[in-house]
């Protein structure tokens, strides 16, 4: 006779305890959908920072406040009595998989892509000043504590080179070229605004290794660039025309590409302006070059980037850049590398180094032999790689949620089926014993109120805390 059947705490009727690691869109949308589809669930969301929302707060450009409306949905989730936010807890350091396994039926990993891809070129690892990943630069102006002290120098030169042609590349370029008065109305951090106020950057050159048909930015962001006031636009119109005319059949069937190319071909109506931006194609970075400087105690600034000039080969769906052997040097005082993000493996997770994701089937984590791992799930960039808009992550999170709910309904094995789970009721006291000041959602609302208050004084939506200590101090007073 099955003992479990008669046990007081039948696992099929007691609440399903779900831990979510990471509080960005992937975590919140998964939580939302599981709570909706399987009401008898308790969700505990763990976040490394005392502040929720991940890239909605730290990734979305400050001049795109409408994108942040998604937070209202997250807010509703957070208000649900079945949901608990536990901030200021680092998974893998403060909290281990072993801790969680005892207190949860399942875990969703949605901590995103915490690192940037590298170019793998000469001098990339040298301490040359004013070369940053776009991720760091975005984090800096958006108040991500990790990059609070980035200190980009925007005075030393009038030219910035951005390597990569995705939406993040356009975001950082737009921030560099947008009028300071416009920026001051956004929730961009005050320290970034100060630096940008004195910025001498007038020209931004955005570089891609392939051609115009291979860009990965989208129409909205390109249109915004084309509408920048007092700004001229340069590109190789000849190349664009050629690429468009030789691939006209394919482009006409691809509506997003067709529309994007129309915007590009049209260019800007501005023919004058003291600022400019350029799209440069067929360039692969080869080397960063620093200013000559004999004093080893003084940091060396970047002076130029050397590029291979490429030509395109192969069919449109698999177009590759082949170096022609010719080189080109671009003088610049600031380099932003915007060639993508990557995830890092955390404790207890299998990891596909090539793809930079946790191997999974529709969100269910697989081990190295492709076997489903009971009770372990993944969502967002950690699941499918660092690309797509928030909506992509939303659908992807819903998929993970649906798999979780279907696993519950099919009574599939979870982390361990025999013990009753207490979730954060037990984990929070353990964390306190370890000396960690956990941050509840109520605590976060206090921090947020301070941010809003400081924002009102400056006529902006909020003034973000750039340092964890400062945010935490709100809770001690």
């Amino acid at each position, binding site marked *: 006779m099955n003992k479990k059947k008669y046990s007081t705490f039948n696992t099929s009727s007691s609440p399903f305890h779900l831990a979510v690691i990471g509080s960005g869109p992937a975590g919140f949308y998964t939580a939302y959908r599981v709570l*909706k589809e399987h009401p008898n669930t308790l969700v505990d969301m763990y976040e490394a920072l005392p502040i929720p929302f991940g890239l909605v707060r730290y990734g979305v450009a400050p001049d795109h406040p409408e994108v942040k409306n998604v937070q209202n949905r997250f807010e509703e989730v957070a208000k649900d009595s079945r949901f608990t936010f536990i901030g200021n807890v680092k998974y893998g350091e403060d909290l281990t998989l072993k801790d969680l396994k005892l207190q949860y039926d399942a875990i969703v990993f949605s901590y995103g892509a915490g690192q940037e891809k590298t170019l793998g070129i000469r001098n990339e690892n040298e301490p040359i000043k004013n070369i940053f990943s776009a991720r760091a630069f975005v984090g800096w102006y958006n108040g991500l504590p990790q990059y609070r002290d980035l200190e980009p120098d925007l005075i030393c030169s009038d030219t910035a080179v951005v390597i990569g042609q995705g939406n993040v590349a356009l975001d950082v370029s737009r921030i560099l070229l947008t009028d300071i008065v416009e920026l001051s109305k956004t929730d961009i951090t005050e320290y970034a605004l100060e630096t940008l106020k004195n910025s001498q950057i007038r020209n931004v050159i955005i570089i891609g290794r392939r051609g115009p048909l291979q860009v990965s930015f*989208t129409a909205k962001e390109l249109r915004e660039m084309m509408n920048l006031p007092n700004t001229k636009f340069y590109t190789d119109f000849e190349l664009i025309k050629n690429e468009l005319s030789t691939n006209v059949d394919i482009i006409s069937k691809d509506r997003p590409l067709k529309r994007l190319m129309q915007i590009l071909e049209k260019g800007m109506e501005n023919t004058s302006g003291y600022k400019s931006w350029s799209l440069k194609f067929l360039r692969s970075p080869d080397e960063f070059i620093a200013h000559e400087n004999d004093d080893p105690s003084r940091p060396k600034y970047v002076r130029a980037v050397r590029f291979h000039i490429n030509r395109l080969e192969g069919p449109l769906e698999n177009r590759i850049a082949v170096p022609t052997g010719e080189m080109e040097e671009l003088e610049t005082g600031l380099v932003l590398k915007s060639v993508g993000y990557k995830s890092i493996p955390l404790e207890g997770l299998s990891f596909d180094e090539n793809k930079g994701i946790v191997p999974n089937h529709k969100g269910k984590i697989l081990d190295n032999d492709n076997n489903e791992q009971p009770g372990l799930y993944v969502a967002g960039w950690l699941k499918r790689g660092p690309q797509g808009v928030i909506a992509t992550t939303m659908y992807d999170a819903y998929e993970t949620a649906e798999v979780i709910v279907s696993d519950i309904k099919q009574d599939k094995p979870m982390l361990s089926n025999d013990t009753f789970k*207490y979730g954060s009721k037990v984990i929070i006291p353990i964390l306190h014993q370890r000396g960690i000041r956990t941050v509840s959602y109520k605590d976060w609302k206090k921090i947020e109120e301070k941010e809003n208050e400081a924002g009102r004084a400056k006529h902006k939506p909020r003034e973000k805390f750039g340092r964890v200590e400062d945010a935490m101090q709100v809770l001690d007073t």
Partner: protein
Amino acid sequence: MHINTFFKQNPGNKVIWNNIPKTTKNKFVPITRLEQFRKFSNSRVFCHKEITPPKEGEGVKINFITPEGEKITINANIGDSIMDITQAHDIDLECACEGSLACSTCHVIVDPEYYDKLDEPTDEENDMLDLAFGLTETSRLGCQIVMRKDLDGITVTIPSATRNMRLEGKK
């Protein structure tokens, strides 16, 4: 930890033994927090907006075809957007950016007969439609379609992005 020890440590969480949700009839379920109950069978928790139903004879009909193929007919107010209508009537249509033209989650496919009656989409709407899953010739964003007298009887289909992704491998 034994359950009794647990509850001793949490004196605020009273155990209610006789309050058992319908779905778990005849099973002993300790519910540790009373508030949990409120949300158990409530599907409208995440609903944003309430709208007053139109007066007799004043509304316009709109038909929704859900991703499951179900047809739902609503008598809607003139001036309400499809986004407003779906939210008020708990029809599953996402609206991540709440109608601010920053996403494509309220993508609907409009009956061709009615598509031509609609105003041309703006560049901004088209930019977002470009990012929609399963874009068609008569795709629009639900937040941009506002009900008018001449749209009476319109049919819109809600595509299922999750379904597309799962069964057809589209992304």
